[in-house]
């Protein structure tokens, strides 16, 4: 009896130092950030102002209600569809009902909700969300496909596996500040910068890279000779500056993803391949039906890490942002740091940070729901 008690006490004693740090500097700050966000707070605590900061950041609360309503309708439409399909109703009717519910739902969500919020809220916050979204879409799929390809090649190679692995991993271990400084000179607008030299070997015009706030699509239209374009061409695509940062990000993380995927590939039991070979499957079929499903848990893990990483991205953007293109590369975390360092507004920064935290939470849960189901965990 007594030994069990000692056992419990020992366990907690072992845990205590780490838990003190994790709770004190990891969990407690969430509640504290919320507390700070409800106050006017510059250097010191001032008046309690309730949700004023949130209204300033997010916009008119009535649009927030619309947003949640829209989400609710879309979710209901989705549930209804799967429910009706399960009961065996003819799919044409089901999809008709689904569409009738879904379209107004989306309209409420985007037009009344999101658009209204963006119009009345803080442009820096919504711009931050938009840039973060571009950044995630620009990096994660490309980074993971490149890594899958490289891991597959590494897996197939007989010699020099170790050397390549070290080489691929170098960008990840290099201090971010140093490599960001190097990429700043590579993507400089100077006519003889490496990016411009590479670019001009294909006969293209020199670019301003990190200093360019125009979107890549607008630049393409300019390149083919158009002189004017609608404003959405600039606002709905990532800027050239952000694209340069995306390339840097891919350069950093492909190696890390490759090494982890290689471990995933190596863990696939050999007999699956042998069975496929006996059945006469070709290389692509083996990759598509054996390799890919069996590394999907690893891919899922990496995509989770990457999404959270996108929201955390700060150092390299802080180094690589330029006066000309700041707005087009300022992801949410950079916008929040500006509130801290430039405006010394701890209260408002905390409100923005709390919004970011909720966004990460929702996204992680969503990703778990949507992608998590498609992951094959074996038997």
């Amino acid at each position: 009896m007594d030994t069990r008690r000692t056992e419990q006490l020992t366990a907690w004693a072992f845990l205590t130092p780490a838990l003190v740090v994790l709770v004190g500097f990891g969990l407690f700050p969430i509640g504290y950030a919320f507390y700070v966000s409800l106050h006017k707070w510059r250097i010191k605590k001032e008046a309690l102002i309730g949700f004023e900061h949130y209204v300033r950041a997010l916009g008119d609360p009535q649009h927030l209600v619309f947003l949640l309503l829209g989400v609710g309708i879309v979710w209901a439409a989705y549930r209804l569809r799967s429910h009706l399909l399960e009961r065996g109703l003819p799919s044409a009717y089901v999809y008709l009902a689904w569409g009738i519910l879904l379209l107004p739902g989306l309209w409420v969500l985007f037009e009344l909700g999101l658009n209204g919020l963006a119009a009345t809220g803080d442009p820096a916050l919504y711009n931050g969300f938009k840039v973060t979204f571009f950044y995630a879409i620009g990096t994660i799929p490309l980074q993971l496909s490149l890594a899958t390809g490289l891991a597959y090649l590494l897996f197939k190679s007989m010699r020099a596996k170790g050397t390549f692995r070290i080489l691929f991993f170098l960008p990840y271990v290099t201090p971010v500040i140093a490599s960001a400084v190097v990429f700043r000179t590579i993507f400089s607008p100077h006519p003889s910068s490496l990016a411009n030299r590479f670019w001009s070997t294909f006969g293209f015009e020199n670019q301003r890279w990190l200093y360019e706030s125009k979107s890549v699509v607008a630049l393409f239209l300019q390149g083919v000779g158009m002189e004017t374009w609608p404003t959405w061409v600039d606002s709905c695509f990532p800027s050239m500056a952000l694209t340069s940062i995306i390339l840097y990000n891919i350069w950093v993380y492909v190696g890390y993803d490759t090494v982890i995927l290689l471990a995933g590939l190596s863990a696939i039991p050999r007999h699956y391949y042998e069975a496929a070979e006996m059945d006469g499957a070709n290389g692509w079929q083996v990759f598509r039906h054996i390799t890919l499903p069996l590394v999907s848990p690893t891919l899922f893990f990496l995509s989770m890490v990457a999404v959270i990483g996108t929201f955390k991205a700060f150092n390299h953007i802080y180094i690589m942002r330029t006066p000309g293109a700041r707005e087009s590369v300022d992801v949410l975390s950079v916008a929040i740091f500006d509130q801290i360092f430039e405006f010394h507004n701890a209260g408002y920064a905390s409100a923005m940070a709390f919004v970011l935290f909720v966004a990460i939470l929702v996204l992680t849960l969503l990703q778990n729901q949507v992608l998590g189901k498609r992951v094959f965990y074996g038997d």
Partner: protein
Amino acid sequence: MAIKGGKTWLVYGGLGLGGLAAGFPFAWMLLASFMTRGESLRRVFLPESLQWGNYLKAWQEADFGLYFENSLIIAVIQVSGTLLFSLLAAYPLARMEFRGRDTVFAGVLATLMIPETVTIVPNFLTITWLHRNMPFAWLNNWPAMTIPFMASAFSIFLLRQFMRGIPNELWDSARIDGAGHVRFLFQILLPLCRAPLLTVGMFTYIGSWNALAWPLLVTNTPDWRPISVGLQQFVSEAGAEVHLQMAGAVIATVPVLLAYFLIQREFTEGISMSGLKG
């Protein structure tokens, strides 16, 4: 798995291309760090002669001596603290039965989702409070730079995964020999956990070397500012001196790459474990 002869060039061609892309910026950084100012501005590929003086100049102009020392001290304290705390925490989570174990583990993992952006302001306030109410200084001193980072969910997770894979017979025989948990952990498990410990240490080392926003907040003199801050300030002040910037970048990179090359086998092994379920 063996590959058919004809496809070998495809495999190595692809790998070579990837390797080139990964290594090219390093080559450019190194080459440019040896150029004269004129060469670096004209962006020639190879310097006429190696300008070793760039390193001396960058070192002196940026006061890298001080920043370097700061970063090394911070790294040593932070890495040893993290290793000790994570090892202690991972052990009961991996190998002991106690009430609330799963809840604690889930809570530890949940902290992975919290971005620094959310914690930075409240943590700064906490540190300021500690600074005022503790007998020793926190701000402008090593505690603010290291203590908040001495436990990380990733480190605890990695060590726990590894410890779970160690056979129970070891514990049984240690028990018969009269060893308690403390002795078992430090005398028997510790040497076995070499690879994950080195991995955790390396990650912490890289993390401490990368810190930028936090040091800017909790220090207002260069006394305890790390090399990342030094390099960032040097770069924004040096303007068009690309050759000196590159020398500075090399200086800041060498200590990390050196450590990486020394332990890269264990590190890759440890990293590979982190993606696997278990």
